């Protein structure tokens, strides 16, 4: 009986290709939308997590000025000095590395090539704090750091723009009025959490940048990397106390600096993306539901259209449950087929979009299975009611139907 019903259902689907296609369309779009949204959302979350972790885990960024937000005032706030970096290193417990940072936008020239980038004046501790590794060459020597020698370590993007695929080591780059030797090449990191290119950077010793580029002893910010076992709240507390003391802030005054925790940023950011994913997923789920209602609608219409057919089947001896089964199978086959096509479409869309947006493509079997099961379930639920209506018709009534 099941086999017969399957045969009959398949015959009916084949016989009414256009109707079957329209029925399936809603499910295809719904399933594809849900899977695409969720898969891309997962990819985005993963991407942000990876970018944040590439910044270095357990990282605190200390910047002058009040915390980010409206009314932020960093212009008036005093900058940091190298003394602050030393004090933090000596007086705050649980730290792994403390690196000063001074940024300066410059034009780099090497041979006939030139490139606009940012020079970052810092120390060797920056490698630990910023989670950087060298692809080639070496770090700064103590002498180079202290004397402010004209040496630099460049990122992959800078290398590509200035030297192509050739090795940059030993070559010199002209920065403003001086020439500096390339002693190292950073391993690539890719896009940053805010979409910036992290590899578009040049590292120089702090002293070099302060003397030759910025001409001041100010430090733009301090990167503080905590040990894995350190408690973030304790470290941030100590850090704030120390800096408030050094900056002679009155007990009731606001901080004129801020401490950002990258882990916290990462969590906030992934949380936001998670919410967006859930929201888009919900919208897509609604479209899947609408697709299901479309199936029900078409099944209902087709039952009306097919009342005579049902009458004939019943009259020549089909049982109620046989007609019911036939309609059910038709609905399930259509929606399962729609689900499969939807999944295929979604995978294509995800691959395309993920490549386009430079995001990782994470195949998520859970959501694919769920969407498929849901589309099949829609077939059963929405196929059942019209099917029951059809099967309960009186054969004579059905035959009279015009």
């Amino acid at each position, binding site marked *: 009986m099941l086999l017969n019903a399957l045969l009959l259902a398949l*015959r009916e689907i084949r*016989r009414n290709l256009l109707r079957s296609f329209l029925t399936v369309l809603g499910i295809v779009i719904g399933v594809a939308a849900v899977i695409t949204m969720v898969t891309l959302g997962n990819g985005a979350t993963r991407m942000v997590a990876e970018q944040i972790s590439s910044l270095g885990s357990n990282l605190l960024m200390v910047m002058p000025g009040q915390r980010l937000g409206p009314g932020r005032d960093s212009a008036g706030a005093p900058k940091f000095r190298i003394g602050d970096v030393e004090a933090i290193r000596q007086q705050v417990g649980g730290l792994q590395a403390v690196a000063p940072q001074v940024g300066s936008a410059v034009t780099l020239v090497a041979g006939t090539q030139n490139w606009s980038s940012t020079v970052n004046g810092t120390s060797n501790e920056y490698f630990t704090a910023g989670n950087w590794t060298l692809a080639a060459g070496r770090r700064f020597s103590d002498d180079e750091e202290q004397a402010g020698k004209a040496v630099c370590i460049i990122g992959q993007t800078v290398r590509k723009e200035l030297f192509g695929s050739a090795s940059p080591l030993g070559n010199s780059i002209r920065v403003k009025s001086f020439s500096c030797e390339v002693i190292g090449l950073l391993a690539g990191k890719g896009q940053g959490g805010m979409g910036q290119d992290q590899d578009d950077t040049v590292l120089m010793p702090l002293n070099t940048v302060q003397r030759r580029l910025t001409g001041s002893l100010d430090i733009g910010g301090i990167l503080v990397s905590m040990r894995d076992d350190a408690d973030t709240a304790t470290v941030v507390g100590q850090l704030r106390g120390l800096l408030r003391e050094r900056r002679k802030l009155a007990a009731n005054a606001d901080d004129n600096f801020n401490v950002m925790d990258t882990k916290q940023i990462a969590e906030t950011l992934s949380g936001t993306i998670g919410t967006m994913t859930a929201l888009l997923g919900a919208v897509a789920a609604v479209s899947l539901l609408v697709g299901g209602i479309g199936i029900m609608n078409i099944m209902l219409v087709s039952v009306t259209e097919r009342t005579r057919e049902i009458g*004939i*089947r019943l*009259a*020549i*001896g089909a049982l109620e449950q046989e007609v019911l089964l036939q309609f059910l199978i038709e609905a399930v086959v259509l929606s399962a087929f729609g689900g499969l096509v939807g999944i295929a479409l979604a995978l294509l869309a995800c691959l395309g979009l993920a490549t386009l947006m430079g995001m990782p493509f994470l195949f998520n079997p859970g959501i694919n299975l769920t969407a498929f099961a849901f589309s099949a379930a829609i077939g059963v639920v929405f196929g059942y009611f019209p099917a029951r209506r059809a099967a309960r018709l009186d054969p*004579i009534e059905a035959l009279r139907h015009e």
Partner: protein
Amino acid sequence: MNPEPLVELRGITRTYGHGDVAFQALRGIDLAIAAGEFVAVMGPSGSGKSTAMNLLGCLDTPSSGAYRFRGIAVEQLDRNQRALLRRRCLGFVFQGFNLLARTTALENVELPLLYRGEPVAERHAAARAALQRVGLAERAGHTPAELSGGQQQRVAIARAIVTNPLLLLADEPTGNLDSQRSHEIMELLVALNREQGITVVMVTHEPDMAAYASRCVHFVDGRVDRDSRQTSCS
């Protein structure tokens, strides 16, 4: 003859609608048909012939009265039991053709066998043989839309006889045919009746066709007016 008639109607009435619009199409039918008979049902339009055929075909239930088919009280059967009875014992040729649209003649004819659960090979063979009997073998692959009215009528007959029913009910099987074809169909029915012992009940308006029957029942206003066993009815 068989002491137990194949079909026995006693005091059958059938009322359509309720209250003011109620219309009594059958007003007390008593009729017994023995196995092996060939009965022609005649009567003016609206006299209740099709209504009676639907009851005989277990498609409908009487408003009152008793219907026994091979001793089974049909009015006490539920929907499914009546469907099984139709499937096993009855062949029905409808007044309209009632073929499935966009479905080939062969598929239409094999449909009752499909519901009986016969294997594919037997289904095909039997359906082809039935089409052969009505002279439509070479049209097996055509859909009703591609067949003439008379050809559709013959497909409907093939579908009714493909199961070798005990009782073949034909509501104006020659209504759409020219007299040449009509006579061929009547000869087919007579052959089925004589050779396979299929009991045939046929509604017709044409005395020519009724002449093939061994018995003639006249309906007037929902009652049996005349029941003659002569070879010639008119």
